[in-house]
């Protein structure tokens, strides 16, 4: 059995952080094998020593340290890769895979970075999948919360967790997802990789999952018959299926009186519709159908556009693209430079563009309103895809005017209605498929 140590040694000879240390305690001498980067070695040694003091024999000690004793070499290697400590006796006859004291590689529970809930608890999910599931369990004390774990991938076995409430989430959906997750044979790096595993949506801007950082929101989704997935090292809960109302309502709203909740959600709907329609409406009214304006408004608009060389469509598309660029640039930049760009982009550029008579004052107001409105919806991914939806409508508006705006809007809604995730339409307003308790 000594050759197992040799085998492990040759296998990991290229790893700089791999260690094999000879250690002798009063009852036995053995090799400790593992990765320095994953194991806190001094503390672990101390731990083993303390355990050894109360034990009478070698095998008793190993048995006490671990339940996985005397396994074959392959399993030992797997254990090492998972960050466990492998103990092999000097004679090579006995071995054990021990849970060591680990190096702390995870960030501690902190505040959400992408969402800023008002009037709510401010802890957010972290990278560690167990912590995340624990956070849910702590808040949801029920035996009906089911937790299935998967390890998928070709190169890297990534851990996935699926949580649902037994009796709430529809059984056939749970089975289907279980099946789909088990079938994954390639590496899952991003949500998009996971998305592809579900229904095909190659060019769709809408994901199958709505990602949330907030445990409250995840629990609310669970209670509303939905399924929550976790990926290891990804500090978001992925709620399946993603429904359109996720864009407008969050559980946190309900911490306010009903009428305020209603107001907040109503404004988000206005924001989404305004983002999609406003630039298109501007182009349609200014260039194709000015007859709709009231007279004084028509004269005002004509005056505001006096001497502008660009056509309404060109100026609008230029401004919309520019603003989307600024938004993206602000995200990319380090936090210390961000405000500077905001100022240059927002104030100086906006001012200069108007003063140079390149775009009309009215358009700048419209664009500003749209940028603000697009941020009113919940979730960055929703805000992004709404920003994308405005472009086709803008093009249609420049061709067909008001008619184009409404055709574009209707087709956008038809398109959204055609989206399904596992046969659940994206436009489902209430997800009420109750499963029965198994």
């Amino acid at each position, binding site marked *: 059995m000594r050759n197992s140590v040799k085998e492990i040694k040759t296998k990991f000879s290229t790893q700089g952080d791999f260690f094999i240390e000879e250690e002798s305690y009063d009852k036995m001498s053995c090799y400790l094998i593992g990765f320095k980067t994953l194991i806190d070695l001094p503390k672990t040694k101390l731990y083993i020593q303390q355990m050894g003091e109360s034990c009478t024999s070698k095998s008793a000690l190993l048995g006490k340290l671990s339940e996985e004793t005397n396994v074959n070499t392959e399993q030992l290697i797997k254990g090492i890769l998972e960050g466990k400590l492998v103990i092999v006796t000097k004679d090579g006859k006995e071995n054990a895979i021990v849970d060591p004291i680990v190096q702390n590689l995870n960030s501690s529970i902190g505040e959400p970075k992408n969402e800023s809930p008002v009037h709510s608890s401010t802890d957010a999910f972290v990278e560690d999948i167990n912590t995340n599931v624990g956070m849910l369990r702590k808040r949801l004390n029920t035996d009906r919360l089911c937790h299935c774990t998967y390890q998928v991938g070709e190169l890297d076995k990534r851990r996935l967790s699926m949580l649902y409430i037994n009796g709430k989430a529809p059984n056939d959906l749970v089975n289907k997802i279980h099946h789909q997750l088990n079938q994954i044979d390639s590496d899952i790096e991003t949500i998009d990789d996971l998305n592809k595993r579900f229904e095909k949506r190659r060019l769709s801007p809408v994901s199958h999952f709505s990602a949330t950082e907030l445990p409250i929101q995840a629990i609310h989704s669970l209670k509303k018959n939905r399924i929550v997935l976790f990926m290891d090292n990804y500090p978001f809960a992925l709620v399946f299926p993603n429904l359109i109302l996720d864009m407008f309502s969050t559980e946190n709203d309900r911490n306010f009186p009903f009428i305020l909740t209603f107001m907040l959600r109503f404004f988000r709907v206005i924001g989404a519709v305004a983002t999609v329609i406003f630039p298109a409406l501007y182009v349609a*009214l*200014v260039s194709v159908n*000015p007859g709709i304006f009231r*007279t004084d408004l*028509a004269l005002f608009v*004509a005056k505001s556009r006096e*001497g502008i060389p660009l056509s*309404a469509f060109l100026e609008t598309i230029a401004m919309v693209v520019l603003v989307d660029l600024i938004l993206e640039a602000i995200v990319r930049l380090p936090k210390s430079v961000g405000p500077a760009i905001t100022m240059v982009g927002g104030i100086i550029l906006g001012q200069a563009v108007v003063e140079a008579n390149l775009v009309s004052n009215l358009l700048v107001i419209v664009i500003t309103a749209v940028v603000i409105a697009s941020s009113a919806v919940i979730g960055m991914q929703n805000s992004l895809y709404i920003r994308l939806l405005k472009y086709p409508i803008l093009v249609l508006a420049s*061709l067909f005017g008001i008619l184009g705006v409404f055709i574009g809007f209707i087709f956008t809604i038809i398109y959204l209605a055609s989206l399904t995730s596992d046969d659940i339409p994206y436009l489902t307003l209430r997800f009420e498929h109750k499963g029965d308790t198994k």
Partner: protein
Amino acid sequence: MIKSKVSRLSIVFLSILFLSGCWDIKDINNRSLPLVLGISKENGQEYKLTLQIPIPKSDNQISRTVTEKGKTVTNALGHIQTNSENAIDYSQVQLIVIQKNLAKNQQEFRDLIKFLMGSEDIPSRALVAITDDNVENVLSNINNKLGVNASAIYDYFNKGTAWAPELFSTPIWEVYRSQFLSTKDIAVPAVRAGKDTVLVFEGSTILRQGQFIETIGPKDSQMINVFNNKDVKGYTENLGFASIMVTNSSIQSKIKMNNNKPYVTSDLRLKIHILERKQGITNKKIYEKIERLTERRFYNLLKKTQHSQSDIFGFGQQFQHVISYHDLKDWRYKYYPDLKVDFKVHANLE
């Protein structure tokens, strides 16, 4: 056969792009937006079209007038289109001023209204007004007045009822419709260029099936508003010893046929507000005076219109279920002159 979905989509997309003719679309600042269209006829021969076009460039909006002549209205419009610097967009035309001598010729006037109604460029909601004056004078009058916007003429007719209860407006489609009505005639406001203000309201012109009948004064026009159940709130009346303002009015009419002659009882209830009065004048006296004054005004107008056989109040509308459709066609000539109206006014304090 085109198989791939992508190439089919791209054909659809490209045809949308290249067949839509979007390069002909003119932005609003490249269009001239005439607000008022004046139509007159010179020497009984050529139509003369005058447009009032605001110039949006300056802060103080001023406007200019463009005049063209042509054998027909289309002809004249075509001339304007050719000679103008910008594309002319008639979608904002708010008012069409027609000279009286043109309106007097029934056939020509009917043709004109039909053309205006049928034209896709000119909105059928544009208001119609008739003037004695030279149309050009009316339109260019805006520029001579200090502090008046280009949209002044539009504003003039859109003050809101409570602010100018005597003024009323008639869109083209109503004029067009009235040509086919046999039980109701229509009044079109008559205006002229003012000395201090842009326009002066002179009353209204009664049109019977597109035929010019006569002009009545503003106070009489007010009676028509009352019978059409329009709000006459804000209407003031000077009674000599007092002046009042009407705050609310409602009219109820009952009809019957007596020996094949139409008979109407109408009760007008006026809620009034006394603005000022001389000393010692009681409410009762004011009520009596306003009642008598209104009644007399109504009977005068009724007599006048019965004489000219134009049912300006639309009484004929109310007899639609009493008289057969066939007979109603002759309402103006057979029944209306014999119409008896028992009109009572009940004034009361608010």
